[in-house]
C-alpha cells in the first residue's frame, strides 16, 4: 500500500493539470495532476476543498436536535445521518435496546434509503458509462441517453428509487429530511394502509433488483479483464457485521480485514471506535484520512462501502442476495476482490438484500405496533454507527449536564474512502494518462474511478452526470498552455484555440 504518486519529488519543475470542480461534497473537490515534459505522471491528488463545520456549529445545541439537524449534511443519504445520530442519542437517553417495533421501523427506513440511493447511483449515474463505454459519445453518455437506448432499464431505475423514497416517506414523514427517529425510538409506526401500499409493489421491487444484479454481472463479466483491472489497488476493508458475521447495514460490530482477507479486528463494539481508528490530516485536503490504528497511517488506510462490506461479511441473511454474494466472491478465486468497478456489482447485491429485507419487515406485524419509545439511565456520551450507502458512518456526541452538546465527531463514509479514491485516481492516471494527451475521454476515466465509490463527491454527479470540469495545462514556469472545459451539457471545448 504505497503512496506512490501522492507527492512528487520536485513539483516545481512539473506541469500542473487541474480538474476543478470534480464534483462537490455538498461543495467542491478537485483533482490535480503533475506531469513532466513527456506527460509522465508524477503526482495525483483528489482534494476535497469544502469546509462544512457541522461538528462545530452543533455545539451548544440540545442533543435531541442532532438527528434532525445533522442529516442536513446531505440531501442524498440524510436517513443515514439521521439514524446514526439517533443511535448515538439512544445511548444518551439510556435506550440500550429499542422496542421491536421501533427497531424494525428504523431498519425499514434504512433499507429504503440504501435501496433508493443505490438505484439512483447505478441507473442514473453509473449506467451510462457501463452501458455505452467510458469514452463513448458524450452527448449520449447520460441518463437521457440510457432512457433512449434502454428505456426499460431507465424505467427500472425510476421505479426502484421511487419505491425507496416512499418507504422513507412513510417512516420518516418526508422523502428527504424527515423526523422519524427520535431519542429512544420512533415517532410513528406504519398504518395498515401504508403497509399495504408498500406491499403492493415490493415483489416487483425484488424482481427489478434481481434484474439489476443480472445486468451489472453481465456487463462486468462481459469484459472481465478490463473491468477487474481498471484503477486496481489493494487495501484493508472495514464494515459492520452481525454477531454471526453476516452483512448488517443497520447495526453490528466493526470488522476490519487486510488486503489479503486476514482479520485485523472483529466484532468490535463501535462505541470504542477511537481505540481502533484514527484520522490523519494532510495539508492539501480539508478531508481527513482515517486509518486503522494498529497498522499505522501508511499501511492502515482502508475502504468502506458496498465492495468492502460484501467481501468482509461471511454471509447475507436474505436468500437471493446470498446466492449472488457467493457467485460474486467466487470471482476472487479465494482472495478479496479489490477492483473499484466491482463496487457496482456489490452495490446491486446490497440493493437486492435491501429489497428482500423490506419484504420481510413488511410481513411482520411489529411495524404496526404502538410501543415506539424506550428510555433508561441517562449518559453524557454516545456513539452511533451505521452502514450508510457509501460505507461506515460514525456519529459521536458528548453533552453536558444541561443537555447541550459539547463535542461532535463525525467520520463520514466518503472520508473513510479518501485514500482509496485517491489511489484509484492515481492508478487510472497511471494507466490511461501517462504519456498521453489530455482528452475528454481521459477526464471521464478519472470521473468513472471516483464515481465507482459513489462518494458524496458525487452530489454533483447526482445531478444527472452534469459534472462540469475545467482542466488547465501549465508549463514548468506556470504558464498556461491549454485549457479544456467540459460543460454541464457534456460538450468539451478548448478555450485556448
Amino acid at each position, binding site marked *: 500500500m504505497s503512496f506512490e504518486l501522492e507527492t512528487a519529488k520536485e513539483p516545481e519543475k512539473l506541469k500542473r493539470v487541474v480538474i476543478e470542480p470534480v464534483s462537490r461534497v455538498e461543495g467542491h473537490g478537485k483533482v490535480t495532476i503533475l506531469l513532466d515534459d513527456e506527460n509522465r505522471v508524477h503526482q495525483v491528488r483528489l482534494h476535497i476543498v469544502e469546509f462544512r463545520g457541522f461538528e462545530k456549529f452543533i455545539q*451548544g*445545541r*440540545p442533543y*435531541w*436536535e442532532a*438527528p*434532525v*439537524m445533522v442529516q*442536513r449534511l446531505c440531501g442524498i443519504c440524510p436517513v443515514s445521518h439521521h439514524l446514526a445520530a439517533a443511535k448515538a442519542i439512544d445511548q444518551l*437517553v439510556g435506550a440500550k435496546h429499542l422496542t421491536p417495533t421501533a427497531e424494525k421501523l428504523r431498519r425499514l427506513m434504512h433499507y429504503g434509503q440504501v435501496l433508493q440511493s443505490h438505484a439512483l447511483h447505478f441507473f442514473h449515474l453509473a449506467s451510462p458509462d457501463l452501458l455505452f463505454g467510458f469514452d463513448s459519445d458524450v452527448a449520449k453518455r447520460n441518463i437521457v441517453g440510457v432512457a433512449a437506448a434502454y428505456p426499460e432499464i431507465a424505467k427500472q431505475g425510476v421505479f426502484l428509487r421511487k419505491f425507496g423514497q416512499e418507504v422513507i416517506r412513510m417512516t*420518516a*414523514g*418526508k422523502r428527504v*429530511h*424527515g*423526523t*422519524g427517529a*427520535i*431519542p429512544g425510538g420512533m*415517532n*410513528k409506526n406504519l398504518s395498515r394502509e401504508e403497509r399495504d401500499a408498500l406491499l403492493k409493489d415490493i415483489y416487483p421491487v425484488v424482481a427489478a433488483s434481481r434484474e439489476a444484479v443480472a445486468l451489472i454481472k453481465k456487463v462486468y463479466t462481459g469484459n472481465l479483464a478490463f473491468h477487474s483491472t481498471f484503477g486496481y489497488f489493494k487495501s484493508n476493508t472495514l464494515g459492520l457485521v452481525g454477531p454471526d458475521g453476516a452483512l448488517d447495514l443497520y447495526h453490528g460490530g466493526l470488522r476490519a480485514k487486510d488486503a489479503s482477507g486476514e482479520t485485523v479486528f472483529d466484532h468490535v463494539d463501535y462505541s470504542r471506535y477511537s481505540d481502533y481508528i484514527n484520522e490523519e490530516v494532510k495539508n492539501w485536503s480539508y478531508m481527513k484520512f482515517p486509518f486503522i490504528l494498529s497498522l499505522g497511517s501508511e499501511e492502515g488506510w482502508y475502504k468502506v462501502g458496498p465492495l468492502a462490506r460484501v467481501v468482509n461479511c461471511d454471509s447475507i441473511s436474505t436468500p437471493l442476495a446470498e446466492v449472488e454474494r457467493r457467485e460474486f466472491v467466487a470471482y476472487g478465486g479465494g482472495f478479496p476482490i479489490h477492483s473499484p468497478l466491482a463496487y457496482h456489482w456489490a452495490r446491486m447485491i446490497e440493493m437486492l438484500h435491501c429489497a428482500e429485507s423490506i419484504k420481510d419487515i413488511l410481513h411482520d406485524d411489529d411495524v404496526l405496533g404502538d410501543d415506539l419509545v424506550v428510555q433508561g439511565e441517562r449518559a453524557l456520551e454516545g456513539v452511533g454507527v451505521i452502514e450508510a450507502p457509501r460505507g461506515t458512518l460514525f456519529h459521536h456526541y458528548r453533552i*453536558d449536564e*444541561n*443537555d*447541550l452538546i459539547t463535542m461532535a465527531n463525525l467520520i463520514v463514509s466518503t472520508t473513510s474512502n479518501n485514500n482509496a479514491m485517491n489511489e484509484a485516481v492515481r492508478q487510472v492516471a497511471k494507466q490511461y494518462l501517462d504519456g498521453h494527451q489530455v482528452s475528454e475521454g481521459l477526464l471521464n476515466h478519472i470521473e468513472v474511478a471516483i464515481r465507482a465509490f459513489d462518494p458524496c463527491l458525487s452530489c454533483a454527479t447526482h445531478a444527472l452526470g452534469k459534472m462540469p470540469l475545467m482542466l488547465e495545462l501549465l508549463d514548468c514556469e506556470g504558464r498556461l498552455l491549454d485549457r479544456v472545459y467540459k460543460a454541464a451539457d457534456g460538450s468539451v471545448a478548448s478555450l485556448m484555440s
Partner: protein
Amino acid sequence: MRRIWALSMSLKPSFSLDGQTLAFLSGQTIMDAALAAGVYIPHLCHHPEFKPHGSCKLCTVKVNGRNVASCTMPAAEGMVVLNDTPELNEARRALTQMLFVEGNHFCPFCEKSGNCQLQALGYFLEMLSPHYNHFYPQREVDGSHPEVLLDRNRCIMCELCVRASQDVDGKNVFALGGRGVHTHLIVNAPSGKLGDTDLAVSDRAVQVCPVGAILKKRHGFEVPIGQRLYDHKTIKDVQTGDGHG
C-alpha cells in the same frame, strides 16, 4: 329562536370589516370581535387569554384610513375597518420577514416546525424568502433548567411568556431587557439562568410560546410530520376554528 337571535344581534353595536358587518360587545377590541365572528386578522403577540400587548404590529388594520393595532383598538359603532388588503398583507409580510432575520430561525431542524406560529404565518402571508439581510445575532441557549430549555435565538419578543408568568402563574419569571435591536428576553434570577428561577414545567408560561424559544426538554419531534398543527391547516384555519393554537 332565530328571530330572537336576529333581534339581539340587531340591537348590538356593529362595525364594518372588509365590508362585512360585525357585531361587538362593549369593551371588545376589533381583534376580539373579529375572532368571535370567525374572521382572521394575522397576529403573533396577541392571545385571547392574555391582555393585549400591541407590539408585533402584524394585526395592523386601517380604521377610517388610519393604521391601528386591532388587538388594542376598541371596536366602535360605525367603524370602517380594512383588514385583508394587498397593502396591509404586504406590510405584514415585511414585518414577518424582519422577525425572521433579526433572530436565528432555522425551521429545517427546529423542533417547533409545523407547530410554530411564526412559520405558519410566513406560509399564510406567502413569504417566499427572508428578503432582508440576516442579523445572525449571538444569542444564548439556556439549558440550566432541568425540564425547560430557553433558546433565545428563536424569541420574537412577543412577551406572551411574560404575561403568562405574571397573570396566570402568579410568578415573574420573564421580562424583556435592553432597547431597540438589543432587546432580549431575560429571566428573574441573580445568575440570569432559568434554572435559578421558580419556573415549573407545568407553568402556562412554558406552554404559550408561539415559536420554539421556550420548550419542554427532551421532547423534540415527537409529533410525526403530517400530524403537526399546521401540516394541513393554515394558521387562519386554526385560529378561527376549534382552538387558538
